[in-house]
C-alpha cells in the first residue's frame, strides 16, 4: 500500500485505481517469448544458411555449395586474368618490368644463334685468324661480364625491394 500523499477527494479514485484488474496476454505468450530467447534457442541466434536443392556437401552441420564446373572459355579467361594479375602485381610490388622480362627471355633463347651468326660474319669480314685471336679467352670474358651484370641487377633489385617494403610499412 502506498503512502497517502494525495488530497482527500482523490481517495475514492485512488481506491478504484488500486482495484483495476490485471489484464492477461493471449495464451502461448510465454512460449512465444521463450522461442525468441537466444540462449535457450541457439539456432535462432545463428540463422542457418538456407539449404539449396542442389547442395550435397555438408561441413560442420551447414550446407556448402559444390565447386562449379568451368568451361574452356572460362578456363582461358581465368588463366589470362590470372597471368595479368601476377604480372601487374610483380611490376607493382617487385619492380619487374614485363617488357624487360620478355626481352630477357628472348635474349636467352636466341643468344646462341646470334653468337654463331656474329662469329661467321666476323670471320668473313676480318678473317679467321683475327677471329681466333679475339675468341681466345672469350668464354672467361663472357662469364666475367655476366657476373658483373648479375651483381648490378641483383643489387638494384635488392634496393628497389627494400625501398618498396619500407614504403608499405610507412603507409
Amino acid at each position: 500500500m502506498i503512502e497517502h500523499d494525495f488530497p482527500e477527494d482523490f481517495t475514492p479514485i485512488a481506491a478504484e485505481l488500486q482495484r483495476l484488474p490485471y489484464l492477461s496476454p493471449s495464451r502461448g505468450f510465454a512460449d512465444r517469448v521463450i522461442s525468441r530467447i537466444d540462449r535457450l534457442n541457439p539456432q535462432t541466434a545463428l540463422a542457418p544458411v538456407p539449404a539449396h536443392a542442389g547442395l550435397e556437401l555438408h561441413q560442420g552441420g551447414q550446407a556448402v555449395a559444390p565447386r562449379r564446373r568451368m568451361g574452356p572459355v572460362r578456363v582461358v579467361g581465368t588463366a589470362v586474368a590470372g597471368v595479368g594479375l601476377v604480372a601487374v602485381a610483380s611490376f607493382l610490388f617487385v619492380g619487374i618490368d614485363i617488357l624487360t622480362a620478355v626481352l630477357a627471355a628472348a635474349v636467352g633463347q636466341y643468344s646462341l644463334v646470334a653468337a654463331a651468326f656474329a662469329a661467321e660474319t666476323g670471320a668473313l669480314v676480318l678473317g679467321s685468324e683475327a677471329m681466333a685471336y679475339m675468341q681466345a679467352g672469350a668464354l672467361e670474358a663472357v662469364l666475367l661480364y655476366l657476373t658483373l651484370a648479375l651483381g648490378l641487377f641483383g643489387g638494384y633489385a635488392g634496393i628497389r625491394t627494400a625501398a618498396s617494403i619500407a614504403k608499405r610499412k610507412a603507409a
Partner: protein
Amino acid sequence: MPPKSYTDVSDQQVVVFAQEGREDAYRELIKRYERPVFSLIYRMVRDTETAEDLAQETFIKVLNNIDRYRPEFKFSSWLFKIANNITIDHLRRRQIDTISIEGAPDALTGERARATAVTLASGGESPLEAMESRELGESIEKAIAKLRPEYRACIILRHVEDYSYDEIAEIVKLPLGTVKTYIHRARQELREYLGDLK
C-alpha cells in the same frame, strides 16, 4: 541447486538461475510479470495486439540481456523501464494520444473494435456489484485513456504498481520533480473526468 518450485524464491534469485540458462527460471519471470507488464502497456496503447507485441518485445529484450541485470536494482523496475521505453517509442512513432474505451481509434471494423475494447474481470461480487464495479472500472479506464501517455505511465506505476516517486523517476527516465508534477496533474485530470465518483 535449483528449486523445484520458485514460489518462495526472490526475483534476484530467479534471475541468477535464468543467467545459468535454466528455462524454468525464464518461464517463472514471464509468469510473474506478464500480466503487470501487459496491463501497463495495454493501458498506454489501448490495443490488444499492439500491447501483446510490445509486451513480447519487452520480455525478449530483457531476457536476452539477462546477464546485464544489476541485482542492486529491483528486477521489476528494470522490466517496467524497458516496457515504458518500448511503449513510449511506439507511441511517438504512431502518434497515438487518446483513444476510446470502446476500442482502438484505428479499429475499422466492429470485430476489431471489440477486440481492442477493454474487458474487465470481476471477482466474487454479486451481479449488481459486479455491474457497478465494471462501470466504475470502465470509467476509470476511460479517464486514464484521456490522459497523456506520460501521465498514464506515471499514474499507473504509482497507484496500480505501488512504486515510489524515486522508482518511477528511474523507470520513466525523468527528473523526480517532473514525475511529481505529472502525477499531480494526472490526479487533477482524473478528478475532473470522474467528478461524480467523489
